[in-house]
């Protein structure tokens, strides 16, 4: 229950270069016996920074991708046709998905002064992933404030995400570093800040659906029992970097007969009709293992078709969404009349930044204690703090629009600002190593206030060369409890060192 070590990006890249990069490969993957063909459009990202677009798909055979491609330079200048590219010159392959209007997207690489290609060797081994990361400054040791829309892995899943910022309420000009530190392309559709007025004793938190709540009147937690019957109330009392994680015994016991863990929080019953369960948390890397080792990695190149075609179908998305909704995230129940009754659900947040989030639950009558059971897949969460507030209300807020987007050197990027100022067909597109500064001007405060960052967009994961080499069409992902159990089994074997390597392998931003 300790925080990961401080991040040393460049050192980590060097360390990883020397590691065997098989962390995220499917254990049973075997080399392809036959060429793999993908008919949906893909982009191949090369180590030298250029991109080859294959609008009619590609064939992988003899350690090369082959197809009718057009190669583009760093500023998207056409370098002419290209029909084959060796796998060892690739950083990754990206499914060209159908969201937005490609012509209206603004690729940061075409706006910013092109820098050197960022650490090709580092990129080649990066396992870090999960959407845009946001920092309060451009300092190397800046604290991560938020990660944005981390479960929007295809355009259809594009969603609004609201994150509480740790900035002081009297800040009159907010400058946030928005970075792409992963082997992903980020499509940022909208950025705005919500300035929320509050009373001095209130805490502002989003309710999981993006609505800010003002909570107060904390109730003393009398016990917090987890699935292994440990009372972890003391660990959950403060946001102090000591976090709750599923007990090893509980994780080891996860199997076909049950794969959930839970917390039962108990507080004195308040007089109010409802109470807010306020959590500071983030996901473990179990979701990342599920994404890399089961959804994408085993299928290799065919994963491009899954992301760019199959998952863009409403039927598939419905099936996937229903399964995800029923298994992942957090489910809340409240004790009433001798049994726990469903009271709500919170979605996954991502594995990087701590997020403050609340769920409002009803307070049953006739009970002297309010007992709330929070259930989740074993070891899927890291919970730094859990509290219950008796008072909850909707506070007044002011929307602070994006006033500017700057490049690393502080130069304005008006096209990037236009792309991210309103959720329309225009997207700000960033690639690994890109960073922009998003500027907001909330002006002076008249009283206490808290800022939240609202973002909308999606991202596409780059398929790693190793996945393409070892992928099999038979391993296309279908959501099921069986796969989740396999992911848990895999997680048990890799978690001991994966977290450290993951957090240290982020792509340095230029």
């Amino acid at each position, binding site marked *: 229950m300790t925080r990961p070590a401080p991040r040393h990006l460049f050192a980590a890249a060097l360390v990883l270069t020397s590691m065997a990069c098989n962390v995220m490969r499917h254990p049973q993957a075997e080399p392809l016996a036959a060429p793999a063909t993908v008919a949906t459009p893909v982009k191949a990202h090369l180590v030298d920074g250029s991109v080859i677009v294959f609008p009619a798909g590609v064939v992988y055979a003899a350690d090369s991708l082959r197809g009718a491609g057009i190669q583009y330079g760093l500023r998207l200048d056409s370098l002419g046709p290209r029909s084959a590219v060796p796998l060892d010159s690739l950083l990754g392959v990206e499914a060209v998905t*159908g969201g937005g209007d490609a012509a209206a997207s603004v690729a940061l690489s075409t706006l910013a002064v092109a820098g050197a290609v960022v650490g090709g060797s580092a990129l080649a081994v990066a396992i870090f992933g999960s959407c845009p990361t946001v920092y309060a400054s451009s300092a190397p040791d800046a604290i991560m404030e938020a990660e944005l829309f981390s479960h929007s892995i295809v355009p*259809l*899943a*594009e*969603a*609004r995400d609201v994150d509480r910022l740790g900035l002081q309420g009297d800040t009159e000009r907010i400058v946030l570093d928005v970075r792409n530190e992963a082997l992903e392309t980020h499509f940022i*559709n*909208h950025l705005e800040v919500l300035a929320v007025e509050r009373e001095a004793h209130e805490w502002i938190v989003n*309710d999981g*659906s*993006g*609505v800010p709540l003002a909570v107060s009147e904390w109730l003393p937690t009398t016990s917090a029992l987890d699935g292994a019957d440990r009372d972890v109330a003391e660990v959950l009392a403060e946001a102090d970097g000591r976090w709750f994680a599923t007990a090893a015994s509980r994780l080891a016991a996860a199997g076909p007969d049950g794969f959930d863990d839970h917390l039962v929080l108990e507080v004195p019953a308040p007089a109010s*009709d*409802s109470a807010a369960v306020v959590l500071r948390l983030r996901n473990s890397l179990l979701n990342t293992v599920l994404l890399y080792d089961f959804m994408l990695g085993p299928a290799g190149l065919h994963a491009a078709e899954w992301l760019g*075609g199959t998952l*863009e*179908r*409403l*039927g*598939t998305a*419905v*099936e996937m*969404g*229903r399964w*995800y*909704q029923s298994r992942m995230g957090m489910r809340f129940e*409240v004790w*009433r009349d001798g049994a726990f*009754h*469903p*009271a*709500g659900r919170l*979605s996954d947040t991502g594995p990087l930044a701590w997020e403050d989030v609340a769920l*409002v*639950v*009803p307070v*049953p*009558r*006739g009970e002297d204690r309010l007992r709330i059971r929070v259930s989740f897949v074993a070891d899927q969460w890291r919970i730094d703090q859990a509290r219950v507030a008796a008072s909850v209300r*909707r506070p007044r807020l002011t*929307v602070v629009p994006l006033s500017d987007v700057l490049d690393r050197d502080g130069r304005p990027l008006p096209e990037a600002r236009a792309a991210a100022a309103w*959720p*329309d067909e225009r997207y700000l597109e960033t690639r690994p190593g890109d960073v922009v500064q998003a500027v907001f001007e909330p002006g002076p405060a008249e009283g206490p206030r808290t800022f939240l960052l*609202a973002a*909308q967009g999606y991202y596409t994961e780059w398929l790693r060369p190793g996945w393409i080499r070892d992928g099999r069409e038979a391993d296309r992902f279908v959501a099921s409890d069986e796969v989740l159990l396999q992911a848990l089994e895999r997680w048990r074997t890799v978690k001991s060192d994966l977290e450290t390597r993951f957090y240290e392998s982020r792509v340095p931003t230029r």
Partner: protein
Amino acid sequence: MKALLAMLAVFSLASSGCRTGGLATEEVIATGPAGIRLAIELESGLLVAELLEVRSGGLLLNVHAAASEVPTEGPVVFLPEASIPTTLRAGTDLPGNTEKGRAVRFGREAHREWLTGLARFPYGLTPETEQRLLEAYGQSEIGRVIAGEPGGTEAFLREVEAASARFQNPDSAVRAGYRKVGPDFPGMGQHWVNPGLVLSGGVHPGRPQILTYVDVEGTPRLTGVAFAAPLAADEPPPMGPLPAELWHDHGGSLDEEALILESPHTADHDPQGPRLAMVHVWLWPDNPDGPFAQNNWALGWARRGWAPPEHVDPVVSRALFLTHGGDEYYRRLLARVVGPGTDGVIRRAVERAAGRASAAIDGLPDGAHGWSEDAEAALLDAWRGLWDDLRYEMDPALWSRLEPAHRQWGGAS
């Protein structure tokens, strides 16, 4: 607060000369956690329930199933005003003795105010609290009384209209988690989807999964809502105020679902597989085909700020769409149906048709009086001209792919 409200309500009732009993009931309700109990004689039988909230279109109730004679979809139900009899009984000792309690005439404003103060939620439920409440009672949506609800759909429509008023401003929609998905459809406009609500499912007038807008002079204007439910294979649409036959399914990609020739909708997807079931509720402009039809062809006029004519011709509406950004939609649709290699022919034909359609309405004044039969005839010609151009300029083998659509909505005279 509840006590204060109850006292105010009682005072109001007393001062209006309509007091119907002593204060014991109010005191019990005001100091206890539950709302007042109601005994309601519906046509199909007695309904006994705790009053949760008095809403503009009816009552939100927590039904006491053991004491009731009519089945309901779960304990938490909405009873539309149209279903409520002239008189009902309210008290604290119901359902033990339904003869007790006091008679309340729901149609009287003073009585309604009195009831409001004695509901469990006198100030109304926020959407979040309502969701928690439903989940606490094991429901994903507000239920209804299964029988004895004359005018239920009408009441539902009124609730949808009231609840969606806040989304007239598209900024509110964005901040509530809705985003535009897919193109502007000729007969449906823009769909703004809330992904979280889609996965939650449920039919609640205040939480539609989809909002529909059309662009009027550069600003999205709310035209209605749509309810969507993610369904497994063979799973029926959700029970509720909207009959099952109103729902239609989507299972393909956005392009497949958006760029379709057929109407009503039958896009290419596995009818046995998982799908998203949908039903539209049109609020503005009035849909000549009814509030739940899949398309609202009056949108062709609404986009230009015109009142639709008495007879709304879908073909004319399509032609009008050509003058309002629809040329790109038709170009993509036709290219998708015909396949590669015809982009130039399609683009030229659509451009010419759009030009003719624009000329047909050039100079027409704004408003209802601007419409003319001449303009309608010219628009019909423009639309037919599109198909003539395609037929004569396209390879016959490729044209054959368009023939079914031409027969259905080519506007042949």
